[in-house]
């Protein structure tokens, strides 16, 4: 292919620029350096076309959030890890997801017990601390849908934890 050298340079520049953000997200979600390293490569290969076409960094990040979340959640599911002991549900969990900040590890444990369609919104909101609009943008769904899914996630999680405590 012509232009192979230029293309190499472009790919490695973008990898150097966005790789750290991808790696940090993957480490946070997978909690394992080696898995995060593999995941970083896989996510970058998948997200590269979108990054190239993105008009700005925020748009590139939205693709990174979407693709890395889906990839890591699939990895976690495939590993089908043993259920970890549950921690106490933090005091500040109230009736509305707005204003709440779940402990990140607890949120990941709850995510693994949630139905598929609730997982990515819950990770992006509770683990990453994205705003609802950003979650909606990253996943290509409406803000209303994000709110509904977060509410369902919280309500299921409360029930789950109540059962665990009983």
């Amino acid at each position, binding site marked *: 292919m012509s232009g192979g050298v230029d293309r190499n340079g472009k790919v490695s520049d973008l*990898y*150097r620029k966005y790789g750290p953000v991808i790696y940090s997200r993957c480490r946070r979600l997978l909690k394992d350096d080696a898995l995060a*390293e593999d995941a*970083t490569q896989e996510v970058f*290969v998948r997200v590269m076309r979108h990054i190239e076409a993105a008009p700005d960094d925020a748009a590139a*990040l939205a693709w990174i959030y979407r693709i890395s979340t*889906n990839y890591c959640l699939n990895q976690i599911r495939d590993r089908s890890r043993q259920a970890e002991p549950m921690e106490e549900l933090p005091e500040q969990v109230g009736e509305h997801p707005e*204003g709440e900040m779940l402990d990140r590890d607890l949120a990941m444990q709850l995510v693994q017990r949630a139905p598929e369609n609730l997982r990515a919104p819950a990770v992006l909101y509770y683990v990453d601390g994205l705003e609802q609009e950003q979650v909606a943008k990253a996943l290509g769904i409406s803000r209303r849908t994000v709110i509904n899914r977060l509410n369902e996630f919280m309500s299921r999680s409360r029930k789950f934890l109540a059962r665990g405590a009983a």
Partner: protein
Amino acid sequence: MNARGHLSAETIDLLHLAALKPDQAAVAQKHLEGCAACRGRWDELVSDSQKFAQYVYPRTVGEVTSRLVNTSLIDRLRLWGFGRMLVPAVGVAAAAAIAGVVVLGNRAPVNPAVDDGYVGIKGAPTFKVVAQRVSGGQLEVKNDTVLHPGDRVRFVAQPAGARFLLVVGKDSRGSLNVYHPLDGQKSAEVKAGELPGSFELDDSVGTEQLWAVYSAEALEAQAVKSALGAGQSVPGAQVVALSYRKEAKGP
């Protein structure tokens, strides 16, 4: 600042990319100075970033660039002129795309060629889906690819010795349709390469499934659909199963 009084992950990432406007960056910096929670997130990103630059990047950049720069399936399709052979989308309600290769039924997800003699030395049949984005650009659809209404997909068969193929899709509402031969009653003879036609994805969202059912003899579509619908294996067939997600629109 997000609704919870902290910096959102996006703000922290943009600050790290030096992509915030000066006034936004100043506000974010000031928040970091006074907030232990956000400072912790920032420090984690900085530390991960150093690890990436020091260890991960040098170890992986070679493979990443070679995977992205070397000729892909899509480039080869372009080379062969497949891009010009697209026919108008056919009126199928739901369309199909991909994902990992698994063998159906009670068998483990291993090489599907293991117990079928007719596949022989040619190896396992494969089935690929190539999507044409409504926003432009093509990609080979993989396990975690998210597609959108209006995207078009095409199929590439590699029968590896199998003579017949039936492609069945299950849309997000659970109905089963035959995509190849379109609305057919029986498997069709198959040759390696792209199947005729392309499918436009409709407005429904959710997870959709696709099965490429390869066989030595033509199979009745109804029997195949019944087996697949019941989650059973298809007698006398090598099945490549794929699933993908369809979501409303891109960011």
